[in-house]
Structures are given as C-alpha cells and as structure tokens.
C-alpha cells in the first residue's frame, strides 16, 4: 500500500502522457503515427506470430557475448593498470583518447573489418562497454586506502593472498559499478548496431517495421520493449550490488 502511494505520482504522469499522445494523434488525423491502442495490438501481433521473442533473443545474445568478452578483458586490464604504475602511464592516455569516441563512429570500421553479420554488433558492444569498466576498475585500485595495504604488508602475506584477500575484494564494488555502466551502454549500442548491420534483433525489427510499410505501431512497440528490457538489465545489476562481497561498500 505504501509502495503504491509512492508510485502514484509517476503513474499519474504516465497516464497523462498516454492520454495526450492519444488525443494528439486523433486531433491531427495522423494516418502514420499510431495511437497507444495500435501499439498494444501491434505488440500482441508480434507476440502472437513469435517474431518478438526471436528478436529479443538475438539482441540479448549479442549483448551477452560482447559484454561478457568486455568484462573478461576489462577487469584484468583494469587491475593491472591500477596496480602497475608503468602500465597506467603507458595505457591510460590511449584509453582517454579512445573513450570519448561514440560507438556509432565505429560502425563503418566494424563493417569493414567484420562485414555484415553477428560479429560486427558484438564488436561494437565490446568496444563500447570495455572502456567504462577498465576506467572504473583502475580507479578502484587507485582508491584502495593505504592503511589496508599497509596492514597486509605488516602481516607479511604472499602476493597471492594480497590480491585474493585485499586488492580484488576492495575493488569489487567499483567493478560492479563499472559493469552496470557497461551493460547500460551495451544495451544502447546493440539497438544502433542492429539497425545497420543485421537481419535480426530489436534494432533490426524497428528499422524493418518502418521500411516495410510504415508500421509505426511496431516501431513504438519496439522502443517500449527496449526500454523495459534495459530497465530489467539494470535491475539485475543492482541485485549484484546487494551481494555480500559488495555490500560492505554501501553500509555504514
């Protein structure tokens, strides 16, 4: 009940927006832009003929592979750059130059290198999510409080114990933050990549709906579905923040 009360204002705003949208479509006698009801029936059509699940599965698979590879590269690389001064001074300038380049700018190069297929979008997802995770991990190592490293030194533990019990656990919350940012970017990019490069996925579905007979009901349905899945992915990452290995960072 309390929960319902708290979300009442936002539900009201959403209802007003939908009503305004509906009224605007009717008032302008638009033949192309869909009413909310047309979007609902469009969504049902996609569910009914099974294409929606295929597109969602295609997009999620690409994100899983690209993002998974990015985690595997970014975490060790970030730890290394954070720990070894020389690695940081050598590689950090390169990352600082590459990081602000929009993943969209990589699209022509991705097509050149990997052609049109599944590899290009995976590459784009990888390149867009790897940088924030490297940066977060590096910052995580740099911000480990000195008193903890000093205590580890005092107890004379092996290098292995130092990493397993001090460095990695201390950085883990930052890694999770990096993963949350990285996954968010990856989901943004998969849609853009699919618009240009492929024949499946939610991005493809949106472009195809427009090209094949101005089905804007399906375009808007696709957009809303993308938003909802993005929200769920973020929720999933937030569950990770409640993990016992990360929780200490947020408690006081």
């Amino acid at each position: 009940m309390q929960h319902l009360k708290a979300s009442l204002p936002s539900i009201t705003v959403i209802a007003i927006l939908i009503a305004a949208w509906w009224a605007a479509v009717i008032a302008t006698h638009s033949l192309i832009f869909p009413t909310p009801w047309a979007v609902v029936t469009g969504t049902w059509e996609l569910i009914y003929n099974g294409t929606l699940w295929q597109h969602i599965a295609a997009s999620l698979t690409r994100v899983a592979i690209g993002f998974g590879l990015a985690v595997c590269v970014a975490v060790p690389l970030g730890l290394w750059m954070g720990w070894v001064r020389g690695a940081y001074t050598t590689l950090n300038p390169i990352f600082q130059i590459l990081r602000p380049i929009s993943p969209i700018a990589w699209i022509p190069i991705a097509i050149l290198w990997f052609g049109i297929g599944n590899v290009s979008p995976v590459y784009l997802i990888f390149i867009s999510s790897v940088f924030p995770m490297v940066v977060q991990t590096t910052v995580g190592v740099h911000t480990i409080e000195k008193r903890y490293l000093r205590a580890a030194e005092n107890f004379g533990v092996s290098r292995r114990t130092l990493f397993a019990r001090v460095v990695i656990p201390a950085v883990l919350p930052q890694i999770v933050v990096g993963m949350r940012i990285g996954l968010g970017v990856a989901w943004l990019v998969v849609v853009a990549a699919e618009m240009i490069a492929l024949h499946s996925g939610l991005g493809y579905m949106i472009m195809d709906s427009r090209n094949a007979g101005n089905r804007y009901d399906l375009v808007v349905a696709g957009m809303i579905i993308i938003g909802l899945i993005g929200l769920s992915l973020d929720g999933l990452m937030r569950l990770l923040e409640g993990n016992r290995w990360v929780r200490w960072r947020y408690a006081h």
Partner: protein
Amino acid sequence: MRTKIEVRDLSKSFESDKGPLEVIDNISFSVQDGEFVALVGPSGCGKTTLLNLIAGFIRPDSGTITIDGTPHEKPSSQGILISQQGSVFPWLTVRENLMFGLNGHAPADHADIADRYADIVGLGGFEDCFPHELSGGMLKRAELARALAVKPEILYMDEPFSALDALMSLRMRNELLRILAKERHTVMLITHDVEEAIHLADRILVLSSRPTRIQAAFDVPFSHPRRLSSAASQELRVSILRELGVDHERPE
C-alpha cells in the same frame, strides 16, 4: 632484562614546499623485552613518523634500528602496527580478518585460532559479523585480536583508542592490560593522553615538538592495577605535563 628494540641516532626529514622539513632529529633510545613504553608529545610532533620508522614502514635518513640485535628494515609480523584509524578489512568478516595473517599454521587450525582470539578480546559470537555491523569499540577489539593472533613480539600502537569515547577508551585500556598480563608483548604506545600513558606504560618518553627529540623520560613505578587518582600518579602527571609546557598549578 634483554634489549628488544635499539634506536640509535635516528633522523628523518621530508621534502616540503619550503625545503626539507626535519621531523626526527637524532633520536636514540632502547626498549627492553616485554617492556611497555609510551611516547607522549604535542600533536604534529612526529610521533607517528617515529613509530612508522621503527615498525619499518618508512626508511630513516640516517641512524639504525635493531630488533634483537639485528637491523630492522622492513615490516613483518614480528611487530604489528595498530593505528588510530584502524585497518580491519571491511570486506572480510571478523573471523576472516583474524585469519588473515596466519601464514605459519595449517589452514585447518586457522578458524580455531581466530575464534580463540575473538573470545580473548570479548568478540565471541561476533565471528561472522562484518566490520560495519560492529561498534567502534568492537572494531578496536577485532583489530587487537587480529594482531595478537599472529603472536607478534612487539605491538606498535599509534593512538589506538583516541577515536573512542572516554568510557570506551578506559575499558579498552583495562582490556589491553588484562591481555598483556597473560601474553607477554613488548609494546610501544603513542599517545597525547598523559593519563593513558600513566595507566598503561612502564616507562614514558616525553617528546619535544618538531624536530622531535626526547625531552625527558619517566619511570612509572606503580604496580597494576593502578589507581590513577593516587597522589603519586597525580604528581607524575603534573611533572609530565610540565615537560609538555602545560603548567598544571595555574589555571589559564
């Protein structure tokens, strides 16, 4: 009695904006095996630097530190530092923290040893708690237990109880004395609290402000348990305060 720590002609200066800043100036003293020595001095006088030099965390510009007759050049679990901020790892449970330094034992014993020391400091039942679930006093106990668990010959204590409230600080002092009565350790304590020094130490060295020198030394000839309100303690307190430039007889 045998000499445990021998400090000879120790000097240390740091680079600052205004040229070299002399922090420690030619200090010599020795600490006997099993002795409890307190270093008191005005804040900012270089007490912490002195302790860090002796514990091996920083290198002196000149002079030598020998422990048991051999030069001491880097930190080891032979002497554990307990600082004001504390360094109990927030990402490990109390038990995991206590097990951290136990390299020499068979892994199967680790948990038993950890639990025994948790008991000794009065943290029995809290072994599975995370540091953020403990109070300030309990954190200090955990830190003390972690240090004691590796059976250090020397405890270096840098204002260990000064972040606690007066009552908790007093309780921790009594706790420390109770533990030291059972397990013999050589202790070097830094404090700005003269009463704490008289309560705990066998000998008190009064340090001058920067550059730090030893200005006076006092034996504390009282047996434990000590009555801080006794006339003799009060007289000692006044003498030490006078060395520190505080004239007790005349209220300001």
